[in-house]
């Protein structure tokens, strides 16, 4: 425990009125600075949200949700192909990473012993910090080895995103599984329940709300990813229903595309970009909120 030494101790005695003037001024100044900086930090957030809403509303119409960009030059067009692509790639990512992540968490909590388990824990930490673009390069190298150079497909994008989502799922599931009291496990064992049934019937149901909530946060993290998809899923203007062949656009890449390849009619490209940004922000915030609610509402009842 640190010993607290005040530099000018003698002047402090009975509350605020006797506090020496310099110290009071410093305290007030610190309060103002800290409150001011907090307000400053919120300015970008407010500005960004305001711009997204004010510029995005202009194209938030049925056309935007009903059309792709196929054959569109200038005004009109929509993001249906990007919304479809986001749905397909996100779905594939969930299929790839949620079962694997939960299984790895079960391994770490229920089975993991010794150096191998420590290595897995360490690598999950490392995975949390992988830059998303590196994940994209990895997916590209894997797929180009099988399908040749220049390969682009939705499932390659899903592989890259899985690399980013798995650590989130493992970490949150692991934490939730560790919160399940050992009393429950011991009670099951005492009744002669095999370990795998204990995990399946007792441990997982108790932790399920936290696991679902953690997985949703993983989805919120990957749904806005742009860089890896730019590399391996590419972009197109048309609908693509097939994850396994051809380029597939997602909403974040759509935003980038609208900005990068704008035609003469700049305003309509910018408007589409901001509308897509607004939809994307709303989507991410809804997932975040829903994940909090799931964690709160479906938590095991403690009395």
């Amino acid at each position, binding site marked *: 425990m640190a010993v607290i030494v*005040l530099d000018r101790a003698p002047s402090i005695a009975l509350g605020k009125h006797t506090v020496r003037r310099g110290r009071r001024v410093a305290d007030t100044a610190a309060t103002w600075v800290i409150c001011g900086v907090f307000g400053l930090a919120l300015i970008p957030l407010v500005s960004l949200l305001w711009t997204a809403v004010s510029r995005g509303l202009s194209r938030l119409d049925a056309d935007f949700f009903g059309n792709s960009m196929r054959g569109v030059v200038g005004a009109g067009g929509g993001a249906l192909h990007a919304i479809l692509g986001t749905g397909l790639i996100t779905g594939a990512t969930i299929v790839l990473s949620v079962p694997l992540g939960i299984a790895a968490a079960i391994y770490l909590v229920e089975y993991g012993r010794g150096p191998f388990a420590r290595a897995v824990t360490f690598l999950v930490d490392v995975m949390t910090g992988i830059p998303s673009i590196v994940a994209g390069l990895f997916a590209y190298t894997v797929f180009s080895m099988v399908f040749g150079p220049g390969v682009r497909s939705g499932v390659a994008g899903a592989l890259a995103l899985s690399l980013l989502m798995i650590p989130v799922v493992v970490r949150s599931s692991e934490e939730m599984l560790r919160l399940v009291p050992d009393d429950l496990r011991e009670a099951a*064992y005492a009744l002669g329940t095999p370990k795998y049934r204990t995990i399946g019937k007792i441990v997982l149901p108790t932790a399920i709300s936290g696991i679902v909530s953690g997985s949703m946060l993983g989805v919120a993290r990957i749904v806005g990813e742009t860089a890896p998809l730019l590399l391996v899923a590419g972009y197109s203007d048309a609908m693509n229903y097939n994850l396994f062949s051809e380029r597939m656009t997602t909403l974040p890449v759509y935003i980038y595309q609208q900005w990068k390849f704008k035609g003469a009619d700049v305003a309509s490209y910018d408007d589409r970009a901001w509308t897509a940004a607004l939809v994307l922000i709303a989507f991410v915030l809804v997932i975040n909120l829903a994940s909090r609610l799931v964690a709160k509402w479906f938590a095991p009842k403690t009395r």
Partner: protein
Amino acid sequence: MGTVVAERPAVRDSGLNRLVGQPEGTRPPGKRWGKAPKASTGVERAGDRAARRLATAAGATILVALAGVGLFLLARGLPAVRAGQGDLPEGATSFWQLAGPLAFGSVWAAALALLFAIPVAVAVALFISMYAPRRFAGPLGATVDVLAAIPSVVYGLWGLMVFAPMTAGLYRWLSDHMGWFPLFAGKPSATGRTILTAALVLAVMVLPIIAAVCREVFLQTPALSVEAALALGATRWETIRLAVFPFARSGIVSGAMLGLGRALGETMAIAMVLSPTPFLMSVRLLNNTNPNTIAASIAQNFPEAYGMEVNALIGLGLILFVITFAVNYLARRVVARSQPGA
């Protein structure tokens, strides 16, 4: 099942877990988590064996995947190191001529971003944990976390179309009045798309993660220290300086390093905001010509790259992977050493 009552320790939802994906304040001080109890010592049943193998296989998959990342990038990146002029992107004569300035740009942009982000993040964390009424601490923290939830491509769009034009005037003023300062030298950019703008956007993006870590460690300050300081008549600021900061120093450092790891790997915001110049290594902040970063360069060049260019970009990715790996590893070492109670 309805009668089973699960007792969970109160988990403080600080948002940190969601941002960095690591266990938060639930860990008992100074004590490792206990392992789940063993089921039995008898013969393993078929179902048990299958379940154990399945779970172990999942763990092994993670191991293999990460080893794969390193090995695949190495295998595909190495040829570029030997490649000569004509094969490399941007007409580079050697791989290192390409990689050196980009690595510098990545580190320079991330360092600038941290320079702005750390003080603001500490102040934000202090405000939420020490100044704001307890009732609002949760909602305020969630508001700051919204900053982390916004996709980077949206930051890019905002930085490019809203923020950069606003900074152009400021840069002209800085250049006119403080041009003698080496960092502000040269002709100021008219568009505002400089490395300083990019670093400021990056700072906004890494702010929430640093603030979340700081908030977490500030809240873990031993109540006794705080009360002792208050009992001696310390003002709130003195309490923070004397009781909170010394306790939280390593936490702030590790939060900053996690932010650094994120800033180094951030791609889209830089790729969109910055107007880069190939092979440039310069510390000037306000010019039209700016050093590019590794991540942004990959994103800009990869879609049109072919042949050896692809290998060169993969090699750059490997360098970025190694740098962020080292930074994250150090950050976690600091976290591990500074567990509360240590």
